[in-house]
């Protein structure tokens, strides 16, 4: 998977490159609008991360040029201003998602993965399986090692989210927004409590733990037997 980052701030762009490379992506970095425009128009990428405040050619122009040329590659734009105009403008110009600086890297990674998945044809799934845990999506049933586990609707949704993003760190804010539609920081440990309760049901009784806490960042469901 090849990603183009167009970002003029040296520190952020370096860390983005490092972080995304370590997450297994091939990353190209353009440090100004002109270079970014050129690369976006001539090379082929799976995703473009675009800062909108750029010298010479701003992010909007690049996005416009790409869409005018019929380039449908997913675009995630970064904006420092928490303004209405930016978001609306970006989405109107055909961007797929946006993040407001400062953002958590885990959040960016989760969004990048979601955008990359969006391109793939959605498989009609009836169940999700991780190790010995199975989610029956049709009947909303969960079994682990053949044992039936009863979950509430929200616990089920939380587990489904974790499994769909397995091996990805999910920040608390993303979990709150995806599972409960709470799009703000609640300043509480609601998510921690919810995860603890979910763990009590699916992990506590078993030797192998699936849900892991990534300190300072969020939670992750690990499918590969790392230990």
């Amino acid at each position, binding site marked *: 998977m090849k990603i183009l980052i167009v970002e003029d701030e040296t520190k952020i762009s370096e860390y983005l490159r490092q972080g995304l490379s370590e997450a297994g992506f091939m990353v190209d970095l353009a440090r100004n609008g002109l270079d970014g425009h050129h690369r976006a128009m001539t090379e082929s990428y799976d995703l473009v991360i675009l800062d909108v405040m750029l010298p010479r050619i701003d992010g909007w122009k690049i996005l416009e040029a790409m869409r005018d040329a019929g380039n449908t590659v997913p675009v995630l734009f970064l904006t420092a201003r928490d303004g*209405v105009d930016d978001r609306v403008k970006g989405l109107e110009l055909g961007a797929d998602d946006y993040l407001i600086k400062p953002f958590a890297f885990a959040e960016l990674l989760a969004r990048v993965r979601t955008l990359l998945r969006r391109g793939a044809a959605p498989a009609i799934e009836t169940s999700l399986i991780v190790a010995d845990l199975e989610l029956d999506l049709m009947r909303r049933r969960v079994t682990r090692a053949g044992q039936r586990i009863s979950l509430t609707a*929200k616990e089920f949704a939380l587990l489904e989210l974790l499994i769909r993003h397995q091996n990805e760190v999910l920040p608390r804010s993303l979990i709150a927004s995806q599972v*409960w539609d709470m799009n*703000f920081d609640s*300043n*509480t*440990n609601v998510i921690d*409590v919810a995860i603890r309760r979910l763990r009590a049901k699916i992990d506590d009784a078993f030797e192998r733990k699936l849900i892991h806490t990534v300190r300072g960042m969020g939670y992750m469901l690990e499918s590969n037997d790392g230990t």
Partner: protein
Amino acid sequence: MRRPLSLALRLTLLFSISAAIAFSAFGWVIVQSTENHFKEQDGDELVVIADAVQAALLEIRTPQDITFLEPRFADILVGHHDASLYVAGPDGKALYASEGPDLSAVLRPVPNGSAANSVRAWNDADRSYRVLTESVYKRAETTSGPYAFAVAVPIDDHVRFLASFRRNLSLLIVGSIALMSLMGWIAVRQGHVPLHGIVEQIRHIRADELAVRLSPDDVPAELTELAISFNEMLERVDEAFHRLSDFNADIAHELRTPIANLMTQTEVGLSRARTADEYREILYSNMEEYQRMAQMVGDMLFLAQSDNRQQEGSIAEFELTNEFHDLFEFYEGWADECDVKLDLTGTAKTTGDRRMLRRALSNLLSNAIRHSPPGATIRVNLNVTETGETRISIANPGPTIPAEHLPRLFDRFYRIDRSRQQSDEGVGLGLAIVKSIVNAHDGRIDVVSDNGCTQFVITLPAHSVSDLSSE
């Protein structure tokens, strides 16, 4: 828009116009009554003569009698200074003509019935007269046609007197109007002196002297209101100013703590070589501080935008019951662990930005859970008042908040106990955000705390979707 006329000019104009109207009316009445007086006087004199002439004419029996008339007419005129008489016979020939103007011209257009016995003005050879013409019919007379006569008195003196009277009166009136205008202007200028005094006082108030107040007792009664409302405005500005500088100090203070933590940790960490685990520990700890700062900046940005009503708004009508259902679902696990129950009664709809209101309600609910003792029940009540307002009340048992803190509870970074700063309490902007969101919806929020129960009440006006989206 054109600048309105100055007050001095307005008042002076008003004075002048009213003086002009009053004096002109006064002058007109005087001139009219003087004129009428003269008219009546002349008329009376003419009627006396005319009655005598008529009586003499009626006494004529034979044509010979006519010859006796001449001395009789002369007699009649005696005592009437300057009066003239002209009498014509039925044949239209002059029977008598006194000295003075030729009155035959007055009679020539044979006066018909309506013109008879009328007093009117008449001019002859630069002189003005008032004349009375009359016809006398004699039943016994065989000859056709009436006798006719005209009496005139000169009125030149009266006319002259009236002309000069009018002139003098006009001059007097114009002079008075000018005087009144001048007086008005002076009065207005004088009246504005206290205003200039206030302006001088206000001019000297600087940003660091907002505690200065105007003294309402030292200004005229009319300006007391102005002084008082200006003082009230100063009060609000002063308060906002202090709040703002407190806010600045608070931001500095709030940022100083995490920055100090970061610096110390990093410095100590770098002071000698450490194991990877130790570095990781420092980075984790730093990240917590960063997250805290990022959240604070995000909250402050949200507040700034919400205060300026710059939030993106998807305004819609929605069920608050559903909102609380979702919020309870979100918080139930945590509430459960805190051994706090959530209870919802009533239903209500409202119109507004659902995401923003959800954030406000979530902040209140999390506060309530945080401050409730174990075993408590948080009661949420929704209802619609008779006036169509939506009331959302969130009440929780818990320590009573001292009354002096209540008004400032919604201030940014305000904490009841300044020394205490719980790590899970956020950055002290939660209630400020709630108030800001409620304000953006033209609503209000009140808080009551007594007998171990704290209750927040949000009142939202009965809006239609168009009311809010047009803002």
